[in-house]
Each structure stands twice: as structure tokens, then as C-alpha cells.
């Protein structure tokens, strides 16, 4: 059995300096919330219009609750975006997120099976993109990072691909020698 003390020069993930998301990431998150709340409010308005009994009972509460909910979601996205960050190290990529449960996920580049860059209409308009990195075994992406600039996503993809290429070449050389 080994102990902590035996290894002194272990690279520590605690010392990773995370880069914040792009400037427009907050705007993107808030626009996404609005895209949910606008149809939601329209549906509620329609229900109140066609069902006067429901309107008489719930209109007052809804007029307070819905703006409050929107405000809370906006505040949530402010904190959520502030707490997110990504970092690229020589051999792995790290991403932190979460308000209540703060998570730091680190994915070794040698374990990346494939990478996807996603860009929705709002992301395209704001020059943003989402990056998904997949490894073996997981049901969905192991790392999913939204709110990065498209340029940064492409750079990360290039870095990961060249890392994998280098590794494959070194494996081939090792087997030939």
C-alpha cells in the first residue's frame, strides 16, 4: 500500500488557474433563459385570457411570481457563469462549474475519443460555441463547455487532435523500434 508522502512532485490540479468564459457568455445564458420565459409567459397569458376563473384566482400571484422567477434565473446565470472556467494543461483539459455542487472535471487528452463543436443560432450571432469532449464509457459527453469563443473552441480542438496525433506516432515508433 502506498501513502501520500511517498510522492512529492505530483502535479496538483488544485493549482490550475482557470480561464473565465467569454465576455458574451453571460448574455448568451440570459438570452437562453429569455427564450424559455417568453413562450412560457405567453402560454400563461393565453390560459388567463381563455379561463377567467383561473385568471381571477392566479393572476395576482403570477404577476409577482413570474418576474421574480425571471430575476432569480438571471441572477443564477450571473453566478453560474462567474464560477465556470476552463484550463488546458500539457496532458489534460479541466473544466469547473456548479454553484451548489462545485465540480472540477479533468479529462486526460490521451483518453479523448472524439470532439464536437456545437453552435446554435444565438451562439453564432455572438461568436460563441460549445465544445463537447467524449471519452469511452460515458453515456454523454464527459466534458461539455458552453460560452467559449468559437476561436478558442477551434484552438482547443486543434490542440487535442495534434496531441493525439503525436501520441499515435510515438506509439508506432515504439512498436517499430
Amino acid at each position, binding site marked *: *500500500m*502506498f501513502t*501520500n508522502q511517498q*510522492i512529492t512532485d*505530483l*502535479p*496538483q*490540479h*488544485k493549482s490550475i488557474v482557470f480561464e473565465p468564459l467569454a465576455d458574451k457568455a453571460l448574455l448568451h445564458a440570459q438570452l437562453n433563459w429569455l427564450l424559455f420565459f417568453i413562450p412560457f409567459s405567453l402560454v400563461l397569458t393565453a390560459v388567463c385570457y381563455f379561463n377567467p376563473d383561473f385568471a381571477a384566482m392566479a393572476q395576482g400571484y403570477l404577476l409577482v411570481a413570474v418576474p421574480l422567477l425571471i430575476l432569480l434565473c438571471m441572477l443564477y446565470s450571473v453566478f453560474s457563469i462567474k464560477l465556470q472556467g476552463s484550463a488546458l494543461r500539457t*496532458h*489534460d483539459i479541466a473544466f469547473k462549474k*456548479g454553484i*451548489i*455542487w*462545485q*465540480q*472540477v*472535471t*479533468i*479529462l*486526460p487528452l*490521451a*483518453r479523448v*475519443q472524439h470532439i464536437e463543436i456545437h453552435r446554435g443560432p444565438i451562439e453564432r450571432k455572438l461568436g460563441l460555441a460549445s465544445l463537447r469532449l*467524449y*471519452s*469511452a*464509457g*460515458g*453515456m454523454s459527453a*464527459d*466534458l461539455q463547455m458552453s460560452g467559449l469563443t468559437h476561436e478558442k473552441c477551434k484552438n482547443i480542438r486543434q490542440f487535442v487532435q495534434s496531441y493525439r496525433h503525436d501520441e499515435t506516432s510515438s*506509439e508506432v515508433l*515504439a*512498436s517499430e*523500434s
Partner: protein
Amino acid sequence: MNLDAEQITSPSLNWQKVSPWALVYFVMYFSVRFIKDGLFNLLPVLVVFVTQVENKLFWGQVALVVALVSLFIYCFLYYRSFRFCITDEHEILLNKGVFKKERLTLKFSRVQNVNIAEPFYFTPMGLVNCIFDAAGSVAQEAVLPGVTKDYAQQMRKHVFAYKAQQQPSAEVADTAQSHIEEQSENSLFIPNKEIAKFGLMSNMAILALAAIAPFMNVAIDFLEQQFITKIEGFYQQELGMVANAAVFAVITLIIALVFIAVFLSVTMSLIRFYNYQLYFKNKKFKRIAGLLERHQLSMSLDKVQSIVIKQNLVARLLQRFTVECLQASSGGTASMAKKNKQTLVLPVLTQEQVDGVCQWIYPWFNSKKLAFKKVEWALLYKNMVFYALLPSVASGFLMHFMQLNVLISLALFLLLATLVFLSYIRYGYYLHQQDGRFYMVVRKGMIGVHYRVFELYKAQSARGVSTYFMRRSGLKSVYIQLAAGGAFVPYLKQHDADFIIDFTLMQAESDPRSWM
């Protein structure tokens, strides 16, 4: 090479046909596929048939004959178009398909296992199915049906010899060393009486019930009409229990259904693991089992992503364990890998047998002697509040409003608190170093127990999770994603959790061995 396949000359590639007996395999294969996938899609037609058609017997027979004739014609055409070829570039090529022609190319380097299955209908002819398992993908699985056993075994040797050549130098050296230290063959045979116990332990009964889930409503109506009223009548007439006859009828039916489910489960276990034989030599498993189809599975220990040793509630009563050797499952979970037959299952083992198998693969592993490091007390406090205290208080209020005895809530609290405590004391982890290799064992459970053993370098990613209160108390949970499943250790001291994450990453990033 002794081929039981007709050679077809071709200027470039040597395409071969499989034996005509393979037609039986195709008939069985497409029949099963039709029942599994096709029947559900035909449900609307079935509904129209039941509700609209008057002469059901006649038209039912016509439909059956048409379906059977179509199946045979389709299988014959499929057999005619089925060709395979082993190229000089070390690939298996398959040409198949009736309406849509398909060409499947599978490189030897991507083949994980070559399994040999001996279905009961091939036994008199001495033929087998040779199955090439690609890394985690069912779509890429190639099956050569109705080839001779010798040919299948030669193919297996051929593929593994090629793969051994292609391995990086470190692995070749490792393999060479293992050849020098030629191990004696270890074996394990499980009697069928024990296999039947697996039916009681496993959830196969639920799987059997899940298979009939789409027809559940119809089944319940049918049961009500056919049985409940009759059993009710029996109780009323024979035993004179007029008042409780309906209740007794339902209870009798439920007990009968449970017995049927258990019987089904035991039968399925016997079909799957009949005459179970396991061999282990030179870091390779070979398992032969099955009633209708003798399935031969071979698996290299290096391909195993994690080993799970588990004992559920029923297994604890029977004092038995199940061991699973999990392989990589691309884009899916471990349960998917299990479905794809990529998991080696050692179904019903006694404690001594588990220790024996562990001696073959990990001689250091002894669940009783390992000094597991426990998780922090904070987990117990948190779970006690969330999973014992709060539900009990809520039930206390409910009891009060329903004017029932509040002591029931106290009993509920004691039960939940015991379960929470049992779950807490089960959690633990152990790190081990053996010959320069680093292993981790994670233990969890409640009444039963579950161990996951894996080499740290096989980790796919590592994650640390903490809440505000955990950070204030200097605690962190760790999750290590593996190519088959994952290991979660909650509420560790922050520096221990950080060490596990950092050390796992260092292993995954610096070890030159291939994780696959």
C-alpha cells in the same frame, strides 16, 4: 487451412461462402430479431386484426404461412449473398444483405475477442459460429456462421498472433515475459445446481417481466377474466369464504406470478450458464457455458477495465457472490456492455471460490484483509438528516393528520437510520501497488456489498465534487470515470481526494500501456 466453406475464385480477393447449414442460423437469427424488434412495430396491425377481422383463425393461419414463407425466402437469399474474405491486409470482409447490400470491413487490430458459439442445432454437424468482437461496437460485430470448430480456432489464433505482433514494444516484452513464465492452467466449474441459484439472485425475472411489459394491460385483463374470477369462485364454493374470496384470489395470483417469475429466472440462468467452465492461463480467460448455445468467450486480462465483485440481498442469504469482468463499452454504459456479451460473468461463487479466482488475477486482493480507508463521519450525519430524519418527520406529520399511531414514524426512523448507517460503514477505498502497477478498490453497499477493482491508469477522467459546507469542513467527493462504469467515493478529506485525483491523472497520462 481446413475450411468447411466453398472456395470462390476471384481475381483479387478470395471470397468464401459459408456452409449450407448456416441457413439454419440465419432462420433462427432473423426469427429472434423479428420477435424482438419486428413484433412490436406490428402491434397496430395486430390491433386491427383483433378488432376488425371476423374469421380470425383462417386469416391468422394465412398470415402465419405467408410470414414463414417470406422468412425462409429472405434467409435463403441472405445466405446466397453472404460472403466472407480474409485479406492479406489482415482484415475480415463481409458481404451481406438482400435488399440493401452491405460491406463490413473489420481490421484484425480492432478485434477485441474471437468467440466461438456452438448452438444446439449445429452440434450434430460439429459446426460453430465464429464471432469477431470489435471494440465495444455491436454494429461492427462480425459473425461467420456454420464454420468448423478447427477453422474457428485457427482464426482465433491467427487474429491474436497478428495483434501480438502489433503491440507496442513494452507490451510485447510483457507478453514475452509471461510466455517465459508459462503459467499452469487454472479452472473453475460451477455445478448446474449452483447456476440455478443465480436465477434467484439476479434480476432476470424482472427482465422476463419487462419483455412482456408492452402487453401488460392485455395480460392483466386476460388474467382477470380467466383466473381471478375462477379462483374467486373456487374459494367461494369450496371453502365458503364469501367475504374474503376476492382478496384471497388476488393474493393467490400474485404468489403464482412470483413463482412463475422465479421459475423463468432460474430457466434463463440455466440457458445462459449451463455446464459452466472457466479456464485462466497466461492472463487470459476462456469461458464455455450455455444450454441451447455453447458460447465460448475468451478475454485477455489486459482488456478488462474493472472487476466487480458483488453480493445483493438474496446472494447474502445464499452466501454467494457474482464476479464481473467488464470490458470497454464505447458510447454506452456498463449495462450495455453486459447486453453485448462483452462482460465475463462468474455467476455464483462461494467466498472461497472468489478468493481462488482473485488469486489467479490479483493475488494481493482479499476483501477480508484489505485495510479499507473509511469515508468521513459527515456523510453519516448528512444522510441521517436527509434520508432518515426528514422522511420520518414528514411521515410523523402524515400519521398525525391521518390519526394513526405516531410510533410508526419512530419505527420508520429506526429502520432508515440502520440502513443509512450500514451504507456508511460499507463505503471505503483502498490503494495498492504491485509490481509497479497501481490499483484502486472501492467498496460500497448496504446489506449486500459491492467491490470495484481497477488499475488507475485505465481511468478516463477524474472529477472532484464539493458543496459549500463540504469545503468549510475540508471535504470532497471523488468520481473516477472508467471505460466500463465508474467509481464514486464520497466525503473524503480534501487532501486525500486531491491526491487520488492527481495520482489517477498522473497514471493515466504517463503510463505508456494502451488502456484498451
